[in-house]
């Protein structure tokens, strides 16, 4: 494991990808612009709904901001996860840590993150990737809008059929029934059962007033060191005889990293993620109105975090200092205020433009500064409204909230989806018109282009090359599939869709060829089954004797032709 300081954006830039999914609590325009400069893929940004921004330049609709809520939103919790998942055609990379997509996160060196590239060469790679996708599935219930786009994105990310093998690096998140702490305990039970922990080190920039489960933490080890910001409330830890550390110098002043390290004789178990060591972040389940959090738990060598927690950066408060301790006015109690600033998001589907407006101060919304108030429709969230009354000018929606002119770039859903497909996520995207493997589409293209075979002999053949071109197209399609190693749920669905486009004999040919190609590929059982089913249906419709056909297929599949 390397250890260093690294530029978050460099980490994204050095991994060319098709799809990027970013989770953050807060969001700033400057960071989104920087992402646009460095990230090659689409940028789907999920942020807490009280912390959004109005985007005034959304080139090619590659940035898609989605407001998120915790499962049971109230004024004390939020969508707090921080994650970047980048998917390329050959693998994926993720970065998990404490950094939000806000200027604040990158102002000083105060955040920590963990990055990992997954090439899916091992089953353990798939295990951790699937844990992230399972988390994404759970997030469906946290969306206000665009559930279908989120589902489509998950379909493009998920490899359902790849085999998985448990691995000691776990991506974790809190769920309806389980807290981050529950996941941490499970991990210890699974990988450290029977071993005695020597100590626990916890770094948390924010704290709670009280901890209902601190005794459970102490049952892992009662030698607990807690690393807090200067002036933070220490009483909850003082009561439980924890050692208290505070920054020695600027390097850790204002730190935002969230860490929990349990040390054993030979190694340690580390949590890095978004969750502060607080009731809302670490100990509650979603059903108990927790924040939505995520992180990574893994075993690390003892020396791995020694420097981070080292005496160069921290000083332990002596008994006298603890006794005389004075909390600062900002005592680091975790508190999630709603931003007081309105923002808007405009999206276009076909010709309909829907503008979502976060309007915390309930200011009047008008098309022009002195115009009539627009009636806004409620969403299921307080302060978040929508309207279809605003039109676009040069792909921008312009209106007024109070006296302020708002200018928002219109996000085009179809362009976003087309962008995803063009970037190699669709098997069939390159095969359109004259190159289509859909007989109807190909015939139309041939007829429109008035294509015919021109013979050089004295006999003029005027037959359109429908079969020849079709065979050529299927051959090219199969060649492109041969190079592809992994198939997502989306690919499964598009194959299914393609082989049901008509009952033409050419579709039978296509399906047979697909079956043969996928027979040589592992982890594609669903696709093969779907092909078999379709072949059986088509043989019936085309009056082909099924027994003869099956005998042929069985022999053909094992032949090299």
């Amino acid at each position, binding site marked *: 494991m*390397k*250890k260093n300081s*690294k530029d978050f954006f460099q980490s994204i830039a050095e991994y060319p990808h098709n799809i990027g999914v970013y989770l953050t609590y807060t969001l700033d325009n400057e960071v989104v612009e*920087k992402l646009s400069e460095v990230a090659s893929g689409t940028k789907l940004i999920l942020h807490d709904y009280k912390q959004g921004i109005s985007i005034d330049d959304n080139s090619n609709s590659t940035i898609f901001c989605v407001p998120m809520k915790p499962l049971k939103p109230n004024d004390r919790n939020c969508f707090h996860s921080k994650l970047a998942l980048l998917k390329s055609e050959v693998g994926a990379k993720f970065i998990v840590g404490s950094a939000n997509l806000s200027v604040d996160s990158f102002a000083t060196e105060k955040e920590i993150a963990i990055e990992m590239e997954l090439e899916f060469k091992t089953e353990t790679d798939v295990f951790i990737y699937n844990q992230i996708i399972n988390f994404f599935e759970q997030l469906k219930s946290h969306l206000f809008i665009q559930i279908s786009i989120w589902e489509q994105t998950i379909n493009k990310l998920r490899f359902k059929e790849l085999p998985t093998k448990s691995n000691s690096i776990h991506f974790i998140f809190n769920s309806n029934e389980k807290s981050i702490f529950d996941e941490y305990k499970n991990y210890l039970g699974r990988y450290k059962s029977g071993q005695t922990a020597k100590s626990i080190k916890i770094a948390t920039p924010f704290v709670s007033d009280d901890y209902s489960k601190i005794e459970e933490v102490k049952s892992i080890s009662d030698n607990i060191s807690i690393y807090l910001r200067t002036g933070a409330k220490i009483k909850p830890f003082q009561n439980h005889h924890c050692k208290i550390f505070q920054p020695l110098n600027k390097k850790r002043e204002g730190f935002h990293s969230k860490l929990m390290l349990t040390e054993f004789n030979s190694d340690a178990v580390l949590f890095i993620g978004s969750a502060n060591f607080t009731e809302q972040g670490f100990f509650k389940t979603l059903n108990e109105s927790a924040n939505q959090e995520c992180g990574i738990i893994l075993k690390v060598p003892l020396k791995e975090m020694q420097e981070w927690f080292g005496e160069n950066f921290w000083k332990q408060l002596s008994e006298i200092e603890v006794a005389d301790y004075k909390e600062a006015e900002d005592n680091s109690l975790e508190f999630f205020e709603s931003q007081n600033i309105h923002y808007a998001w405009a999206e276009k589907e076909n010709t309909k433009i829907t503008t979502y407006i976060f309007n915390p101060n309930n200011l009047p919304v008008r098309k022009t500064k002195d115009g009539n108030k627009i009636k806004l429709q409620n969403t299921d969230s307080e302060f978040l409204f929508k309207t279809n009354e605003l039109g676009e000018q040069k792909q921008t929606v312009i209106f007024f909230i109070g006296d302020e002119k708002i200018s928002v770039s219109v996000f085009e859903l179809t362009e976003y989806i087309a962008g995803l497909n*063009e970037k190699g996520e669709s098997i069939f995207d390159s095969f359109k018109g004259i190159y289509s493997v859909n007989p109807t589409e190909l015939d139309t293209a041939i007829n429109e282009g008035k294509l015919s075979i021109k013979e050089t002999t004295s006999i003029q053949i005027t037959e359109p090359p429908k079969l020849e071109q079709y065979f050529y197209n299927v051959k090219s399609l199969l060649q492109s599939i041969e190079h592809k190693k992994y198939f997502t749920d989306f690919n499964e669905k598009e194959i299914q869709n393609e082989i049901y486009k008509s009952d033409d004999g050419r579709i039978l040919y296509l399906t047979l060829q697909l079956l043969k190609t996928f027979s040589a590929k592992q982890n594609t059982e669903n696709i093969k089954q779907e092909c078999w089913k379709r072949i059986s249906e088509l043989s019936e419709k085309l009056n082909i004797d099924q027994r003869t056909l099956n005998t042929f297929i069985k022999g053909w599949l094992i032949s090299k032709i």
Partner: protein
Amino acid sequence: MGYESINIFNVKPVSFDQGERDPFGFDDFSEKVGADYLPFSGSVSKPTYYLFVAYVNHFLNTNKSLWKNDKQKREIQIRLEKLLVYCWKSKFSKTELRGGLLGNNFELSVIDVFTSKGWVIQNAFKIYTDRNFAPATLELYLKKVGERQMPLLRDFILCDYKLPQRKAEYIKDLVKQLQKKNSLFNNHRLEDFKDKFKKELIEKIKGRLKNEYFQLLQPYFTYKTFKEETFWSKLLENPNPKIPFAFLNNWFGKFVLAVDADIYNKPNRKSLWINADKAFEEIPNNYLSSSKSDITLQKRMKKSKWFQFNTSENRYAFYDKGSPSEKRRIENLWESYKKRQGEEEGTSYFFNYRHSALLRLIKELR
């Protein structure tokens, strides 16, 4: 898979080039002052891009039937830039291409030249503008190889080789045809056009009519070797009143420290303001404004996005917009802004007035 395959890191601080990062407008002002002296981009500096951008714009102007609107024009620009990078990357290693090549992080296999998508937004055209910076170099290029390449590029833009196999065959053949002697697509350095371009660049700088400065700068284009420290000190720290950089940087630094002392109520604020005001008075009057900028420098900058100046108390304070999170955001932006003093491109200057870009150009043109 073990922990060896992962990397735990502290997240490095980052400067943000855009947006509200400029509380008093100094970034914009210094950029305009730099532009007064050095007529080229202050961002990425690769001499080849000047020729490439001029060449592509010439291509677009002579092939107007290929595009109907700005969007299509832009798509062609990006596809040609991708093609350029594709050609370079098929010939040179990532290390050889280091130093200002846009898109160097993309592996060759993922650069799809048949679409404008999947490319970083910051591209050569955004940085270099669409003006023809080096007409004589372009003319020479067109004569030597450029004109002959135009039909190939036209075919490339029009082609619809979407099938993966045909794409691969086509691009292989195209790269072969483009990578001829003297071709831009064959070398990421200007080489054969270096002298012509250098001459044009020197003429352009001379054309700014900043003679005192030009006399200092010109020898650097002919030096075979020189110490970078002297390059910086001679040009940016020069106390000659005909060169503004040292005066402005001196004041910017001291002014920022004094504002910081105001907003955090530091005990030494008075002495810091004395220093700042002294530095301000040393700036020759004609440098307090730039013909290209709306801003005029004043001892107390009145317009600020983050701070208000209280005239009766003679001090700065954060704007109170009633939102603690917004205040925190501005405080963090300010921290980041302050840090820039002494951290600009590894030099000890508040702003470098495009001199980092100048140095890169000089080095590559040597």
